[in-house]
């Protein structure tokens, strides 16, 4: 069981958690929220614009969640990623994984984030006092994703 959404609107972690809590077999919920920071690499960020490849995005996200479901015992999973123009402190992404016990929930949540960072077709552009710039991918994200290879 899982929910995947790509949207311009904001999301509410409490609403997603409440939906999961209807299943009394769930003992552990691990979640991650990514937020827009007001500084990146030493420069102020006024807005962050997220572009994506619509035909591919949900397919890529579903593949990542599917891999997590094969590796861990997941009772429920929510993955929401926003696109469009956001401000500092705005929410970008939510990953929430429910399991009977915490080990599976934590591992699956971190796995999904690591794979999303390297596999899902989103790109960030920042508006700074010096103009617009595309965010560069980080080698540390490739390293994080490679940890999960068997």
């Amino acid at each position, binding site marked *: 069981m899982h929910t995947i959404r790509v949207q311009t609107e904001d999301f509410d972690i409490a609403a997603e958690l409440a939906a999961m809590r209807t299943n009394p077999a769930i003992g552990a919920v691990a979640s991650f929220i*990514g937020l827009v920071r007001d500084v990146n690499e030493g420069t102020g960020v006024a807005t962050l614009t997220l572009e994506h490849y619509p035909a591919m995005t949900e397919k*890529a996200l579903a593949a990542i969640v599917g891999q997590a479901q094969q590796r861990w015992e997941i009772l429920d999973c929510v993955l929401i990623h926003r696109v469009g123009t956001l401000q500092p402190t705005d929410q970008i992404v939510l990953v929430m994984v429910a399991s009977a016990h915490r080990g599976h929930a934590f591992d699956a949540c971190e796995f999904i*984030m690591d794979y999303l960072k390297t596999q899902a077709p989103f*790109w960030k552009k920042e508006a700074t006092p010096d103009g617009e710039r595309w965010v560069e*991918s980080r080698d540390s994200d490739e390293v994080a994703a490679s940890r999960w290879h068997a």
Partner: protein
Amino acid sequence: MLTILYFASLRETVGKASESRGLPANPTVAGLVAELRSRGDVWAAALDAGKRWRVAVNQEMASLDTPLRAGDEVAIFPPVTGG
């Protein structure tokens, strides 16, 4: 025919979001990229072998030896930065 899509900084560098063209002589991702690069100028710069770019074929991540067939949708873009 192939549909080719460009995203993010790569779209801005080559100055277009999409185009249609025939299969390359070498019908693989590598063959397509070589023909695009041979356009020179911004194309050679954007698709330089030392540059980091990624390719998806029919919305799935592909590699240089992924084969191409008529009707495929090929997307070329910089490394992703979501999350």
